[in-house]
């Protein structure tokens, strides 16, 4: 899943380890989320949303184009 984590982190001048410390996860976890190799759980996504004071859907993009599979 695409996300704005790297940009938001850069705006605060944080390294991956810094963000990991804020979220209580490893640097590898931050790197995996940033590169789209791992999608965070809902609790972690809420934690990220609270940390950056932004709604989840503004940080993460599930590339939903509005068409529903019915």
């Amino acid at each position, binding site marked *: 899943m695409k996300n704005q984590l790297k940009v938001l982190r*850069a*705006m605060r*001048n*944080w*390294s*991956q*380890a*810094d963000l*990991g*410390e804020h979220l*209580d*996860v*490893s*640097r*590898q*976890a931050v*790197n*995996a*989320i940033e590169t789209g*190799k*791992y999608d*965070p*759980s809902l609790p*972690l996504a809420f934690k990220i949303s609270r940390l950056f004071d932004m709604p989840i859907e503004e940080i993460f993009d599930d590339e939903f184009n509005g068409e529903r599979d019915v």
Partner: protein
Amino acid sequence: MTNLTESAMFDADEKAGNNNQRILWMILCGVGIIMILGAIAGFLSAHSAEGGGPLNLAGYATLGVFISVTLILAFTIWKLFQMVKQSGERVPRREKLNRNIILACGGLGGIMGLAIAASGISNISEQGADPFVALLAGPLPLIIVVPLIFVWGVIMPVVAWFWHTRVIDEQEANAYRDGGYYAGYAFLMLTPLWWLLWRGGLVPEPDGVAIYLTFSLVWTAVWFWKKYR
């Protein structure tokens, strides 16, 4: 934000990325040392089984190569450790604890392996047992067995529980779970396959130790790949 701070931030990430590779190499070198020590044990056991006595020139040369490679690997670990230390990487508290637990478990596993190998060597020199059988299936004295059972049956489950519930984060838990799936499938697919090949007279009888090692190896390889890729 200035370009300077931005580059410093990404330097820190790059350094941390390099440290992951260094730690991975340290673990591989450690595994290499354990394997070479096993090879030295096997070599000396075979020598004892053939009557013992002083080694010939070829024997000394072989032993010299084994010891040299062990020393090179040990030096590499020390050098990599110094590089990790000097990089000044900021490691989150949780990750630091994780690394320490994994390194401690690796060290403990090495000591347990050496204790079993040492006992195997004494079996061979005293009873002239087959080196391979003595190292893997020979009798062990209670003075070694009791502490090993305590470590494996009491300490390790507590460490594993603590590691799972208090130390690793969700990304690592996910990587570990994936490792378990791959290892489970490898076990479910390969074991009957080996059994059928054996029944057909094409391969030797299925071996529990080989199956256990394959299961562990697949689990660990996928866990590390998923965590560090």
